[in-house]
């Protein structure tokens, strides 16, 4: 239960414990590890977007200087179809294995076909060039409309659409359909004073983490592997690699390195099983890193989408009906973020009648992976844009329109359950009052508002706490630190134990040293792993009270814990001095042995996060360029454990959302080859593109967490897309529904409007 209390450690802006290593270059990321004898693995990738593999000849390559191992799909075990019990991807281990290394077909340009390990990168590259692959080209399917057409080339002849009342007779590129509904939409639209409809498209985009995928794998002759991997979830690397290679889970140890960004894109595996196999064949440790080009072409971008939204409302702004038709590209294998996209699209609003239909669609592009609130940015971009059009038509302030229909505690969410305590209204009201909302606008400038939402996850976490003999505290947990979570864990342990933050050290332990812990993602670490750390601390406190009781010769239930010390309860007649952690720990051998606290849990009660963003943009009518003048991100964060790092999530997510709206897209040629596979032409925001990003943290505590924590990491990317698009419309006078709003498109739209 959340307690309204004064905190000592929580809420301060402490220096993070891994900070010094990160500002001095000492922190070791995936590509920074080497063992004696390390050799280098490189992957041969398909030059075609869709083709049958006729033959692979590696004879010449295997004889080349420095080459110690070559593998193809034939060297991997056959993996049966088995659902990956993870999240919304509805992925299958067979697909995962086939994505790691193609078997009989290549399904996207860049799909891995073979891999070589050699004593230098140059030798490995030379060997790749000597591998002869014969392909029979097939017609690639590159977009939703083509993939869903009746006469579409079917990418997987064994795939029959699931989710329909009856299994279809013909295979399809539509892997899954899903429907959510409430009430009677037709009646709802009929009762409306105004009905609007719009079709919105978003492109394939990439998470854009600055550190490419990297790992170092070594396996001994007994079959025990050790892998250093840059990953958000080393337990998932272990389980994925075990499935792909047919190994026992206990034979793979994964050590998480520092990770240079993930945002969901590093919650799966690409090169890790390949490196293990190459290590087995060569007898040497194998280092594999992706180039930036490989990251774009062959990791997991976010789904391109086509979303059709229809909204009916009364003249006073009350929503009467909403419908959504949402098609998400899954890439080469089924499992896009269509389901969460469908569950989020109308989540902020009270509406009695809605119908949402979602489609998971195969195309010959890389298999999509999670990207920060997966699915929500795309569908909510569409809905928040149409709501803006509605506000305009009704002459209503866009915030007022949302206030009129905002969900609150006790409302039934569009995806089913009733909301517990949430802060959407509070964010809307804060936005209205915010000084930035009344900054006057000049010519060619416009302001846009949008709402954002994400469920936030709970899932499994483990934590251990050791009290060292000098009373310092070691916290062992299993979540790679992508945003400052080591600091938050230390602060929560310090708060609970009543000791200074500086006396707590957090270790992110490998898969053999930490208890099983789900991935760093889903905005779950501060919430769920934080809960485990707090529970482990309470376990320690319980033990310390017992130890103190034994030391004093009184009963355990006569001891209290306060300010980091065991003291007799008020009224207990005992002439004793308080015992600190250091006192108890240094005496531990005599009172029962080392002090070890632990907790493991399957967290429930993750609180959803709502946000409201507004942006001011100015258009240059000669070039079509949109400049972001001001950006304000307001979000219900539950309880900010470390305010600077919570602000950092709001600002970082905003920057990604702005990039998604303004510039980022995969550009494909007619052969299904990405033409802009580099940071020059896949343009993410740079420092000169953005203003200061103003944040306001609203704290509506989550009653299910001891400190009121609500996940904060993912919600920030959702609202910026429509906030920018709505601002652009206000600035230009022209509504563009397809992202990105890059200068050529804005210019074309302006010229079209003028003609």
């Amino acid at each position, binding site marked *: 239960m959340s307690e309204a209390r004064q905190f000592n450690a929580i809420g301060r802006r402490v220096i993070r414990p891994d900070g010094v290593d990160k500002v001095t270059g000492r922190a070791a990321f995936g590509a920074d590890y080497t063992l004696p004898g390390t050799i280098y693995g490189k992957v041969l990738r398909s030059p075609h977007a869709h083709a049958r593999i006729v033959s692979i000849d590696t004879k010449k390559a295997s004889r080349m200087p420095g080459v110690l191992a070559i593998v193809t799909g034939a060297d991997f075990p056959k993996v049966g179809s088995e659902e990956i019990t993870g999240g919304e991807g509805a992925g299958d281990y067979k697909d995962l294995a086939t994505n790691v290394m193609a078997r009989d077909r290549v399904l996207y340009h860049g799909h891995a076909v073979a891999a070589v390990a050699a004593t230098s990168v140059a030798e490995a590259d030379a060997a790749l060039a000597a591998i002869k692959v014969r392909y029979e080209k097939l017609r690639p399917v590159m977009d939703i409309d083509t993939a869903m057409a009746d006469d579409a080339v079917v990418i997987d002849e064994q795939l029959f659409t699931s989710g329909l009342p009856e299994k279809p007779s013909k295979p399809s590129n539509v892997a899954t359909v899903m429907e959510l509904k409430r009430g009677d939409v037709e009646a709802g639209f009929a009762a409306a004073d105004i009905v609007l409809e719009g079709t919105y498209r978003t492109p394939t985009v990439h998470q854009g983490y600055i550190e490419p995928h990297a790992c170092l794998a070594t396996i001994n002759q007994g079959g025990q592997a050790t892998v250093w991997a840059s990953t958000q979830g080393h337990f998932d690397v272990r389980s994925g690699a075990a499935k792909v290679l047919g190994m026992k889970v206990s034979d793979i140890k994964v050590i998480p390195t520092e990770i240079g960004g993930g945002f969901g894109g590093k919650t799966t595996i690409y090169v890790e099983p390949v490196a293990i196999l190459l290590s087995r064949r060569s007898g040497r440790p194998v280092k594999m890193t992706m180039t930036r080009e490989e990251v774009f072409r062959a990791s997991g971008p976010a789904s391109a989408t086509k979303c059709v939204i229809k909204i009916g409302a009364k003249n006073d702004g009350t929503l009467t009906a909403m419908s959504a038709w949402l098609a998400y590209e899954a890439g080469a294998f089924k499992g896009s973020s269509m389901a969460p996209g469908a569950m989020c699209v109308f989540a902020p609003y009270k509406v009695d009648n809605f119908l949402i239909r979602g489609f998971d669609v195969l195309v010959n592009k890389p298999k999509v992976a999670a990207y920060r609130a997966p699915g929500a940015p795309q569908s909510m971009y569409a809905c928040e844009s149409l709501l803006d059009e509605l506000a305009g038509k009704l002459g209503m302030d866009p915030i007022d329109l949302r206030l009129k229909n905002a969900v609150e505690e006790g409302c039934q969410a569009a995806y089913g359950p*009733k909301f517990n305590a949430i802060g959407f209204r509070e964010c809307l009201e804060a936005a209205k009052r915010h000084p930035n909302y009344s900054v006057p606008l000049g010519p060619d400038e416009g302001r846009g508002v949008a709402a954002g939402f994400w469920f936030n*996850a709970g899932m499994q976490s483990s934590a251990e706490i050791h009290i060292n003999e000098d009373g310092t505290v070691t916290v062992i947990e299993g979540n790679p630190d992508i945003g400052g979570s080591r600091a938050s864990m230390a602060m929560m342990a310090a708060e609970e134990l009543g000791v200074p933050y500086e006396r707590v050290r957090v270790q992110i332990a490998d898969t053999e040293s930490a208890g099983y812990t789900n991935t760093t993602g889903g905005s779950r670490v501060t919430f769920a792993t934080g809960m485990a750390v707090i529970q482990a601390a309470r376990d320690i406190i319980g033990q310390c009270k017992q130890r103190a009781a034994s030391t004093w010769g009184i009963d355990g239930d006569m001891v209290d814990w306060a300010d980091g010390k065991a003291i007799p309860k008020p009224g207990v007649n005992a002439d004793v001095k308080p015992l600190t952690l250091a006192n108890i720990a240094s005496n531990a051998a005599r009172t029962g042995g080392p002090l070890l606290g632990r907790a493991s849990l*399957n967290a429930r009660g993750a609180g959803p996060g709502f946000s409201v963003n507004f942006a001011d943009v100015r258009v240059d009518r000669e070039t079509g360029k949109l400049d972001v003048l001001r950006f304000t991100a307001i979000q219900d964060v539950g309880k900010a454990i470390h305010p600077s790092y919570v602000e950092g999530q709001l600002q970082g997510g905003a920057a990604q959302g702005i990039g998604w709206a303004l510039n980022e897209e995969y550009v494909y040629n007619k052969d299904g080859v990405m033409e802009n596979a580099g940071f020059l032409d896949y343009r993410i925001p740079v420092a000169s593109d953005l203003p200061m990003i103003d944040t306001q943290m609203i704290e509506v505590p989550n009653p299910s967490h001891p400190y009121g924590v609500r996940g904060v990491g993912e919600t920030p990317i959702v609202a910026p897309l429509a906030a920018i698009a709505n601002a652009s419309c206000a600035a230009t006078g022209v509504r563009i529904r397809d992202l990105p709003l890059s200068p050529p498109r804005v210019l074309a739209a302006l010229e079209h409007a003028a003609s």
Partner: protein
Amino acid sequence: MASVFFPDHLAQYTHGRREFDVNVSSFRDLLEWLEVRYPGISEKLVGRVAVAIDGDIIHDPFLETIAANSEVHFLHRIEGG
């Protein structure tokens, strides 16, 4: 009586029925109750869906208690990114 809700994509396992009123005190009991009426349904649900009990979303529930007027919603599992 607890109210139990199935979204459309899971209602295929309950012959289209989306709402139930059930007298059970734990999620395990709910699964047993459903299995009696729709043999084979547990396999489709266990390890594959998430459940919200009174607004709290849980992956892999089993031992969770269900109160007399709880609301139980079956949902897609959402992991995030």
